[in-house]
């Protein structure tokens, strides 16, 4: 498999171009699963500001991606996470996982986004039209989603 591609950036990304880059003309890939996280306009949200820890954030994501590659038979994977000020409707995060069969691609994609939520150093601050700002609090349900991957092992590849 090719090494995971991990990027933390302020600039937007192009999911179609990233998908094509992951395929890269290979013919052993049977499917690519994707998750595109988008900034949602809850409660009159005007913008979401994502803070990160330069250096640690990249390392943490690379480690999570390496864990996905160790647990599932992946041909490759891509994780791109943005930081800075994002408006509603703008993409925040892209996870792509490629495998010869769909189960590995779908499961590892869900694993990656669940672990990103709870183990990647990002902090979201919401800005509202009123001028009010609020730090987003970690959700217990995200911990539950991430914890389900602690015990379960992937099914053997078909």
């Amino acid at each position, binding site marked *: 498999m090719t090494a995971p591609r991990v990027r933390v950036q302020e600039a937007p990304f192009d999911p179609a171009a990233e998908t094509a880059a992951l395929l890269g003309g290979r013919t052993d890939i049977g499917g690519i699963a994707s998750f595109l*996280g988008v900034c949602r306009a809850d409660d009159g949200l005007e913008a979401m500001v*994502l*803070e*990160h*820890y330069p*250096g*640690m954030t990249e*390392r*943490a994501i690379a480690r999570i991606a390496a864990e996905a590659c160790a647990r599932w038979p992946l041909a490759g994977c891509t994780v791109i*996470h943005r930081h800075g000020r994002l408006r509603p409707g703008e993409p*925040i*995060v892209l996870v792509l996982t490629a495998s010869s069969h769909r189960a590995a691609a779908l499961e590892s994609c869900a694993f990656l*986004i669940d672990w*990103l*939520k*709870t*183990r*990647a*150093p*990002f*902090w*979201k*601050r919401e800005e509202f039209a009123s001028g009010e700002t609020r*730090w*987003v*609090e*970690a959700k217990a349900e*995200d911990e539950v989603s991430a914890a389900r991957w602690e015990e379960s092992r992937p099914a053997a590849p078909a």
Partner: protein
Amino acid sequence: MRVLYFSWVRQKVGVAEEEVAPPPEVTDVAGLMRWLAGRSPGHAAAFAEARAIRAAVNQDFATPDRHVGPGDEVAFFPPVTGG
């Protein structure tokens, strides 16, 4: 020792990072938090909710009993909210 703060911890402390030289009896993350809390009212406010704060030592997540010493990079922040 370099200490970094993120999110509301940074806002309460009032700086994003600082160089500190804690006394030798400060040997772990929990001890460092107690010592930092005494540096200013902002630090005290930030570390008042010690259980709400997570730490990293040299860019790896760290538990309160993790050893810290001169030359380490230690970061304090709330639980992460990425994805």
